[in-house]
């Protein structure tokens, strides 16, 4: 592929020498974005598992006389059960009975008879669908609006907000990767166009001699492949120490859910592919560019 014959003096072009210098940072940014995607994806998966399963809704006892308070609380509980059971992603929601509640608290507070006198909060046990978990922030909002004193497990709500934020960031990173792809392609496009106008006389002669468009396009494509690969390897080389640095500092952090800040092996497998992919992108872009330009010749 590299030793193929070339009639065009593309190797000496000053105008294409900058291409690796532009591809390298693109590959670097792309690698960082991809690493981010993989790390986030791992974190989201773990948090998802934490959120999945069951959760608890607490309804504070309504203020007032014991009798009246109990009735109003019960009404709230029934309303909450209705809302919960109708909510997508919730498979089952049922309130713990007074006896269950007392049994739950007895070990800490002792005398069950005394407990019955207290205005206890009601607890609703909620089972969620692990495949389609409910949107907890939305659920929490809905409950709070409909029933004063209702609250969803705080930690879970916070975690689910974090998950949806992470998902947005993940999409943003994917968008950045696509944008980088476009910019890299555009770089090669303009470099190729410049190269073609520098060598238009040679191209015209080849064209008139009867060179098929692809004969000319291939020479630009081969050159672009080499330039793309150079830039890609350079960019990748810059990625490795940066990633290692992040992983190392994350290990010092020791923070519970942030511990796993290193890129998984599958992520590296993709990132390693970036230099050849950049080369391939450059090659295809150059080839298409030349074909498009030559199609306008008589």
């Amino acid at each position, binding site marked *: 592929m590299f030793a193929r014959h070339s*009639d065009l003096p593309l190797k000496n072009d000053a105008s294409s020498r900058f291409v690796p210098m532009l591809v390298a940072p693109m590959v670097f940014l792309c690698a960082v974005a991809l690493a981010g995607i993989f790390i986030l994806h791992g974190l989201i998966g773990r948090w998802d598992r934490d959120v999945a399963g069951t959760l608890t809704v607490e309804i504070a006892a309504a203020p007032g006389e014991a009798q009246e308070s109990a009735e109003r609380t019960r009404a709230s509980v029934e309303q909450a059960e209705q809302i919960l059971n109708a909510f997508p992603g919730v498979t089952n929601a049922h309130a713990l009975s007074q006896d269950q509640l007392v049994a739950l608290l007895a070990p800490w507070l002792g005398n069950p008879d005394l407990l019955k006198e207290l205005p206890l909060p009601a607890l609703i046990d909620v089972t969620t669908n692990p495949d389609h978990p409910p949107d907890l922030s939305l659920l929490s909002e809905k409950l709070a609006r409909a029933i004063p004193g209702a609250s969803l497990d705080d930690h879970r709500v916070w975690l689910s907000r974090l998950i949806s934020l992470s998902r947005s960031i993940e999409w943003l990173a994917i968008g950045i990767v696509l944008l980088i792809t476009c910019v890299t392609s555009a770089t090669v496009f303009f470099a190729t166009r410049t190269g073609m106008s520098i060598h238009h006389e040679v191209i015209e*002669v*080849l064209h*008139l001699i*009867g*060179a098929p468009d692809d*004969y000319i396009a291939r020479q630009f494509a081969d050159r672009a492949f080499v330039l793309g690969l150079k830039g890609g390897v350079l960019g990748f080389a810059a990625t490795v120490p940066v990633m290692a640095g992040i992983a190392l500092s994350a290990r010092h952090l020791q923070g519970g859910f942030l511990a796993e800040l290193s890129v998984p092996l599958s992520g590296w497998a993709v990132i390693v592919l970036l230099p050849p992919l950049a080369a391939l992108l450059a090659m295809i872009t150059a080839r298409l560019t030349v074909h498009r330009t030559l199609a306008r010749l*008589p």
Partner: protein
Amino acid sequence: MRQPTADRANVVQFDNVAVRYGRGPEILQDISFSLPAGSFHFLTGTSGAGKSTLLRLMYLGQRPARGRAALFGRDITTLRHYELPALRRRIGVVFQDFRLLDHLSALDNVALPLRVSGTRESDIRKFVPDLLTWVGLAEHLHARPPTLSGGQKQRVAIARAVIARPELLLADEPTGNVDDQIAMRLMYLFEELNKLGTTVVIATHNENLVSRLPHPQLHLEDGRLRTD
């Protein structure tokens, strides 16, 4: 009555062709002629008469503004873009300004038409030096065109035009920069090719050459063609 379809036996067939550059006036008008396979013509006319322009039409460097033109029995106005290269490879051209590639040696310049058509390198190494030797450039195989004289460049250009044994050879002032002796040698090369079946058109204002060789003329005057 004249058959409107392209005649298979004619390598070139023009009917009422007109040419213009951009939005300019028509440089050539009502050009109608045909070149039978194996014919040999001189294309004459004063400077600026349109000789190079007419050749450019024939090597598909430009499309006619009006009229019908056929090459090798194919209407060139209806050809698809991807069909053109194969047709061009059947045509050898000596450009008036040579159009050699300055960064390539004489050898590589002459090898171009063979490389473009996918000829094996071993064959290229066999044929190209022979031809360059024949046109008197044995000493300059590896020279780059900028280091060659006008006449030497012209011979490289001629070698490039004939190396692939084209069916149609179009030469624009191919003897403009050489002395009469070399001119006759080059004409001899064209005649040899012609005997092998190549259709030849040579644009020139070398009266001496035209009078010494018994070939018919296509004469351009006032943008129109007069055949003798």
